């Protein structure tokens, strides 16, 4: 599998990352359960889920750090298993960056230069102007945030087609976080890099992602573009004159129902005239569509236990 061939496949705009029926079990836990995922080239993809959902395991399987029990992971159409040409196109910034602690920064740069043909020292220096790594240059003395920044700088300098980041903004102060986002957006704008982020920071993801997947208990509960999510699902506040006879919580049109006083806040995909009439018959006096956020969808997926799709 030559580099040229891999690059050609990637340029076609196919799904750059394909996870097909991935399964992985640990002795006491099923970490990945028939996971199917597609990431398009040049998009920013967000993976969210509670702790222990399997996000990190999925990411490590995508990178061929862990092996799947069954299923495939393809990068640009090629299986990632033991595939250095595909791996050379991927940059990885882990949530814990435990380096070869005996190395210093210069030696890490040298390692990356020797490992990746496309390593761009100019890009590294350019990023260093923003991140300003301390001059003492020994890795053991760097803080967690600095290690993460170094990892980001190294992995962006290899000019990757895909950048995979696991919880990149945890442990960063607001300024660094803003810088990070700016750099990522710049990568996409300039180089059409595909970015895959796993994060707890829903607000950030909501802002910059094209597509989002919600994961829980080893399964993908929801996967769609943010735009579709916001246009297909609606969050509506409904008020009734008195307690409605029909149980609102059990209505199948509603994906999630919250009640405060006599006001119900519901999530639904089917807010149409038919539903409105039905509710008016039950005594609805007032309804208003309010802003649907990623957090709402997230809560809905996690609490309900079943998919929202």
């Amino acid at each position, binding site marked *: 599998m030559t580099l040229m061939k891999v690059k050609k496949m990637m340029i076609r705009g196919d799904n750059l990352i394909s996870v097909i029926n991935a399964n992985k079990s640990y002795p006491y836990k099923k970490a990945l359960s028939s996971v199917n995922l597609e990431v398009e080239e040049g*998009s920013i993809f967000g993976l969210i889920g509670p702790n222990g959902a399997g996000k990190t395991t999925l990411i490590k399987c995508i990178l061929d750090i862990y092996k799947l029990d069954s299923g495939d992971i393809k990068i640009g159409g090629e299986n990632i298993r033991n595939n250095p040409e595909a791996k050379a196109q991927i940059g990885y910034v882990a949530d814990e960056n435990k380096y070869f602690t005996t190395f210093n920064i210069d030696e890490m740069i040298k390692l990356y230069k020797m490992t990746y043909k496309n390593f761009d020292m100019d890009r590294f220096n350019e990023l260093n102007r923003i991140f300003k790594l301390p001059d003492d240059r020994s890795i053991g003395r760097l803080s967690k945030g600095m290690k993460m920044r170094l990892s980001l700088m190294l992995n962006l300098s290899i000019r990757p087609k895909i950048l995979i980041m696991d919880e990149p903004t945890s442990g960063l102060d607001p300024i660094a976080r803003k810088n990070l986002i700016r750099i990522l957006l710049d990568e996409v704008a300039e180089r059409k890099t595909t970015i895959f982020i796993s994060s707890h920071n829903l607000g950030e993801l909501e802002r910059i*992602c094209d597509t989002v997947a919600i994961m829980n208990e080893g399964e993908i509960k929801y996967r769609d573009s943010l735009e579709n999510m916001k246009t297909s699902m609606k969050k509506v506040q409904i008020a009734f004159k008195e307690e409605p006879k029909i149980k609102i919580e059990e209505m199948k049109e509603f994906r999630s129902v919250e009640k405060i006083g006599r006001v119900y806040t519901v999530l639904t995909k089917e807010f149409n005239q038919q539903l409105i009439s039905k509710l008016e018959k039950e005594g609805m006096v007032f309804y208003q569509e309010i802003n649907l956020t990623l957090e709402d969808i997230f809560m809905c997926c996690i609490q309900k236990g079943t998919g929202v799709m």
Partner: protein
Amino acid sequence: MINIDSRSSTPIYQQIIDGMKENILKGILKPGDKLPSVRELSALITANPNTVSRAYMELERQNVIETIRGRGTYVSALCQPRMEEERMNALKDNLKKIIIEAHYLGLSKEDIINLMESSYDFDEGKENDDKR
């Protein structure tokens, strides 16, 4: 310049389109003005370049902006803002908000209409006052 509310139900690309149109309406952007590139705008408002690119494409389709090869993207000289429609929508939204507020205060539909009519009187009165 343009404010993006990521928590809004309106898709971000739509917000960018609306924001651009609003700026043109308000006169912040005039026909012939140069717009920031996709990259610049995405950095400015912290939005996904794909989204910005999509918004630009849609604005171009609507002839609100135009791209000149090698030069950049500009507000369309032919752009004729549909002033009425935009402002009409804004007015409708505001009215709705007021009605909801009134409803919460316990006012019935009649009460609201009475309030409106008294507002008209008040307004006319004020106009008369100003004219003196």
